[in-house]
């Protein structure tokens, strides 16, 4: 799974940087954008294998980004995992409805666990015959 490209769209600089470092150590190729508009541009340029998308962001929020991505044929098939905080169930639902593949509740996980989840996500993608267990079931704990 090495060299898969992930774009993290997250406005909190520290969270973005820690996540980037940790994912890079696991062999992923990471690019960062710190607001919705920059994120959209970067995604269009780079066509990543996965987008990690924060929801509350300046300029364009995560929902708007998600909507735009999914409405364009060129980006509609790029999987998006929504990054959220606990207690925002409505946000999660809205994100999934807009076409997000899954969600991760940031505040509930050690950063290493998130990497594991992303590795699992790619693992499932590569084995479509495998049981399509939802990340979210374990992300809830």
């Amino acid at each position: 799974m090495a060299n898969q490209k992930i774009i993290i769209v997250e406005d909190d600089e520290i969270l973005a940087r820690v996540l980037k470092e940790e994912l890079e150590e696991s062999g992923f190729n990471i690019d960062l954008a710190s607001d919705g508009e920059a994120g959209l541009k970067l995604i269009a340029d780079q066509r990543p294998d996965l987008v990690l998308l924060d929801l509350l962001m300046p300029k364009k929020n995560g929902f708007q980004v998600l909507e735009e991505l999914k409405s364009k044929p060129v980006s509609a098939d790029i999987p998006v995992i929504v990054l959220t905080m606990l207690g925002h169930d409505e946000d999660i639902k809205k994100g999934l409805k807009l076409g997000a593949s899954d969600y991760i509740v940031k505040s509930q996980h050690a950063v290493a666990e998130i990497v594991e989840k992303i590795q699992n996500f790619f693992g499932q993608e590569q084995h479509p015959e495998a049981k399509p267990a939802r990340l979210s079931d374990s992300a809830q704990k």
Partner: protein
Amino acid sequence: MFKWFLKNYILDLEKFKEAVDHTSDHIIFTDPKGTILYANEAASQMTGFLVKEMIGKKAGTTDLWGGQMSKDFYRKMWQTIAVKKKHFTGEIVNRRKNGEKYIAQVHVSPILDGQGNIQFFVGIERDITKMKEIIRLETEFISTASHQLRTPLTGIKWVAERLLKVEKLSPRGQTYLQDIHRSVDRLSSLVDTLLNVSRLDGAKIIIEPKPLEAVAFINDYIKECKPLLAKKKLILNFKHSVRVLACKTDLSAFRNIVQSLLSNAIEYTNPAGQITVSLSTRAGSKKFLLAVKDTGIGIPKAEQAMIFEKFTRGSNAKLMKTDGTGLGLYIARESTKLLGGKIWFASIEGEGSIFYVQLPLQARAKRGEKGLT
């Protein structure tokens, strides 16, 4: 004699009318068809219509302050008061004469004669627009604040994890860092608890039943508790009468219950004590029972009646552990209620407690905002 009686009767009646005229709640009387016979001053103040404008018109229509709700709403209300002849209570959106909308808590009662025929209706309204707004702002504030708190908390947590992983620290340095990490975890769970309570209070909770295998769920939860159990040398047994227990329930509400009962058992049982979690259901039953038993400090008898109330902790619990929110059992009770279940317990101070939660195998979906009662 009769004259004297009549005079007093009329005086009483006048006093009574004065009271109704000047009370702060909006009060109207209508005939059995809903035509307004009487309205007090508060009704006029709340709606902006003069009393004389109201008399003779139909209540609940756009002629006056009503007619803003769905047809279905008015039909159900009429069904309750005129056909079933019962009280109706609900929240209703109305419109003042100047076009401004307001939210009212409304109560309508049919007044029956000896034969059970409707003589007239009494409608009482209280303007709760401001109160609703305050509750909304409060819930929104807590939700925003907790989000704002969580971002830096997550930052501290993740950076501490990176530091432990990437940098070579002395054993003391590592201990300090682990202390930071543990404190952040505690702070995070406090924020979670407070948010949970604010959402329960704001009735914002959405119950969304999803398939869940309860045996595996509890096993997983117990696994998470292993470090704490080991630290206190507590023995935990999990007994389940069935190998798997498939149900449809709301994950967060169910987790709240399991978490609250288990963490209390772990917290308030002395080292080397025992905890037994059991899960059972009978064939053909539509319910299941979760029980958490411990050999802990128990709840003093005099305090048992209040133990589920918000911010309430047992006096012995406070002695054992100074920090605690007194919210765990409140959250467990409210979550149980939301799932349509029952919670109760038996406890002897100094010997232990057993908490029971009976839940339906199929919980019912529920939307946010409090519905009409």
